[in-house]
């Protein structure tokens, strides 16, 4: 009898699991409007990685074809280079950015002139590292990305801290991440 009951639980859970089959590839998935945040906190070190389709950031995913487009990439990179604009950390935690790396798409010139433009998606990736003197005070982080990049509708955030691993779905209205 136990087995049948267990079997039933197994069946229902595995059926449910089927729906989520594709979720594991989430970091690779490229969905316009959605972005990813990976946040890890250990000791006094806070690391944040932000991955977003270029569509959310600048509104196109090809090499800049005119001056305006080149400028919008430049200004996006400038914004991404200012972690204090993107993340609101509690001031009591006393965090200072120590590493900022922004990897815009189309950074490399085509190998040879006239090369076929690949029709692959392009992404912005940026990495930040903060040093926090009172990391224990770091209970939540305000995510201001929505304000600066209006093409972003949702951010899937995964975080690791001493309280464990968790994932949260953030939107412009619900833009606070609990650690």
């Amino acid at each position, binding site marked *: 009898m136990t087995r049948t009951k267990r079997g039933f639980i197994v069946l229902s*859970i595995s059926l449910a699991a089927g729906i989520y089959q594709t979720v594991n590839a989430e970091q690779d998935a490229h969905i316009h409007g959605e972005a990813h945040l990976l946040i890890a906190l250990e000791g006094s070190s806070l690391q944040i990685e932000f991955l977003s389709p270029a569509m959310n950031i600048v509104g196109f995913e090809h090499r800049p074809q005119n001056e305006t487009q080149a400028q919008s990439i430049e200004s996006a990179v400038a914004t991404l280079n200012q972690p204090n604009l993107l993340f609101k950390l509690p001031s009591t935690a006393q965090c200072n950015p120590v590493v900022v790396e922004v990897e815009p798409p189309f950074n490399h010139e085509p190998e040879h002139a006239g090369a076929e433009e690949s029709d692959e998606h392009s992404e912005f990736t940026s990495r930040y590292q903060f040093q926090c003197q009172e990391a224990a005070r770091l209970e939540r982080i305000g995510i201001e990305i929505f304000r600066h990049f209006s093409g972003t509708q949702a951010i899937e955030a995964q975080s690791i801290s001493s309280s464990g691993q968790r994932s949260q779905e953030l939107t412009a209205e619900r833009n606070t991440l609990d650690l």
Partner: protein
Amino acid sequence: MAILSLAFKSLLNRRFTASLILLSIALSVSLLLGVERLRVESRNSFANTISGTDLVVGARSGAINLLLYSVFRIGDATNNISWSSYRSIADHPKVAWTIPLSLGDSHMGFRVLGTNRDYFLHYRYSSKRRLSFHAGGPFEQVYQTVLGYEAAKALNYRIGQRIVIAHGTGKTSFTLHEDKPFEVVGILNPTGTPVDRTVHVPLEGIEAIHQGWIAGRQLAGLQISAEQALERDLTPKALTAFLVGLKSKLATFQVQREINDYRKEPLLAILPGVALQQLWDLMSVAENALLVVTALVVTIGLVGMLTVMLAGLNERRREMAILRSVGARPRHILLLVTGESLLLSLVGIAIGLLLLYGGLLVAQPYVESHFGLYLPITLPAPREWFMLGLVGTSGLLIGLIPGYRAYRYSLADGMNIRI
């Protein structure tokens, strides 16, 4: 206060109907709390099963799938991963420890897990608690086994006994690895996790019993004895999954990406905490449905009370009239009838709590041994108090309906009741 004691006495006078209402409220309250408790505790038990593991790695499938078969022993793996891939990740400079897991065999309906001694060293459950031994110690030789507490208890095994492992995971398997029995060398303490129902053997043991087997069948005429098997190379060729602990949690996402991008084999690395949360998101639909059903049952209980109170009002016009004649004002009548409802709901809640704790006391050992779910007997959680408060308030509000009717009656009827 006098009104409440009057309400109590009036209820006592109608004790048969009153006790029926009490029963229905009490049962519905205990059902509501019981469902809530099962929900919370099953979540806890899932969450407590794995602790301190940074990544779970297996063949590429779904995150929840991998978590379920590797950690909770629910369902089956879609594919194996090669030993060489495992070694190359285990030797990664950022990896502190790994626990290899090899599933697929069983013993009397209990899953057999092939692993190594790191399992007893690094596996953590609940809040970073280590496995400890009830008797004996970890295995040291190929044909030795360590039993989970429940497996040992259910099968009544002791240290030194020899057990035979069956091929496959069914309860009644026709293919047994009879020629290579395992000696029980250790029994673990209860953990309240699937570990309790697991038979642990060394990876080499799994390899040894499958020597001379191809595709789940023993080759005819090819018998390899237990001793002969020992002389062969018992390095496993494949694994089901493995758990990874990292030197720094900061590296988690980076190592996860490296494993997911591993060139030689399609691998999947998941964050167990995140996968568990995805599982909850799925389960919450069913849980909410269950909660709605129990809430409806409580509503039915309260509506039953309303029906009885309203039906009783007509018979009680005379009682009300007498009360009025001795100086009770209409609002006293309102208080009396509403007070009765409130009293009924409160006593119903109290009896419901008694039923719940009585039920927990009786069901606890059964649920633990059959479902591996430990139901602690603790005071109601804040959420449960909130539910009880909601039931009590609803009882009061519903009591206002017959109360108001009685109030109107007593105004209209006055003393002019005719019999």
